[in-house]
């Protein structure tokens, strides 16, 4: 099958999830209670919203991930043809990875990989 199969799978996923949730909602007779709508924590009422600042470390790792993920995208077409191109492709990728590795070492030296 061609690309239509992706639409079929999409329909299958939505039908499966929506069907399950709908059956649950039809079968269950819920009770009303203001306590039910509260966030699940230790039992005492929650103070402050969780939607505020969090550790900047996650952001740093996300940035680093972006760099290396783009690198990975460049490597895919290279990986397909490397056997045909031969030794030239090897040297080219050595240069590519060397430059990237320097950047990686710089990030390491700057302490971006340190979780604080």
């Amino acid at each position: 099958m061609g690309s239509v199969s992706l639409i079929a799978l999409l329909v299958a996923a939505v039908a499966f999830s929506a069907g399950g949730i709908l059956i649950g909602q039809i079968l269950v007779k819920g009770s009303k209670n203001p306590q039910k709508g509260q966030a699940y924590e230790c039992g005492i009422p929650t103070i402050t919203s969780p939607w505020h600042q969090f550790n900047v470390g996650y952001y740093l790792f996300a940035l680093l991930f972006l760099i290396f993920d783009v690198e990975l995208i460049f490597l895919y077409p290279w990986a397909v043809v490397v056997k045909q191109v031969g030794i030239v492709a090897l040297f080219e990728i050595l240069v590519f990875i060397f430059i990237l590795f320097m950047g990686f070492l710089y990030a390491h030296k700057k302490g971006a990989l340190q979780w604080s």
Partner: protein
Amino acid sequence: MSHEKAINDLKIKSSMFSLEGITSSLHQWLYATLSPTFALLAECVIVILLAIALFAALGLVLVLMERKVAAHIQIRLGPNRVGPGGMFQTVADTLKLIMKEGLTPDKADKFLFNLAPFIVMIVAMLLLAPIAFAKGFQIWDINIGVLYLSAISSLSVIGILMAGWASNNKYSLLGAMRSGAQIVSYELSAGLAILSIVVLSGSLQISDIIAAQENGWWLFKGHIPVIISFVIFIIAVTAETNRAPFDLAEAESELTAGFHTEYSGMRFALFFLAEYINIFIVCAIGATLFLGGWMPLHIGHWEGFNHIMDYIPSSIWFFGKTIFLIFLIMWFRWTFPRLRVDQLLNLEWKYLLPISMLNLILVTIIAIFGWHF
């Protein structure tokens, strides 16, 4: 000569009952009797039904398998009350979950909260497309199969972040952030490990990669570098599926349940199911790339041995390898203690990523000079 003829007859007979024979004859029959549009529609309906059936079956089997493996490693019996040997325990659990009320917290972002389980399920379902379950039994043999798999699988983090953010719960948000950092980090070394197989096979298409392993699986043909990338791949996918020892995104003792703390009823069941489906899919990818997918165990020029192995159906080979890898990942859970978040990121960024980059160069040298078998 009559001996060879008999073997050929047997092959034809066995191919009639193989999945490949069934799918191709069904395809021909549909297009012969119906107009192309309706035939395509009928095939879509068959794919939808099969995919849903596979999801349900995998959910039931893998949850039971997890509990049984856990029980036997801890020298207990595990579920053994519902059905013979506890076979129907998961069915009973699912019925219970259906009967539970699906709550939405008052302060939650209602739209995103309800959308998140759908995203996670859609991603899990779309990943089925290029997986070869048996010889000629593949939903869509995309020519960029490996790229498709890594692209779609990285979408699941969006569903997880969405769930954690929308819940308006501190545990959920913390779990989702940890999970996001972990998934994106380990995706890199998983991608590099996959690339080493692409370099060796010279193709991104799943069927080409399997065909390249006809005279031996890459794990055995590729010397030590491929073994290294296999180990890195297994570690990375264990982390990507949030399994122990990398399960700090849903560490029960500190975050109750991580990103799905606020979910209950069927929505929780969908997250739970998607988690197990994802384990199955990453193990299927690992089995396809490193262990030959549906390809039987072939050793070089041992014709007789290869012949005997060919008689075992390809679907059994595929599911056997996949279940073996799943068992391996379940085994990890009871062997290694949970990592801390800084240890987790150190392991990826300071060890796995440099090692897998150097390993990729080694694999390239092997591939260019043809030093593999």
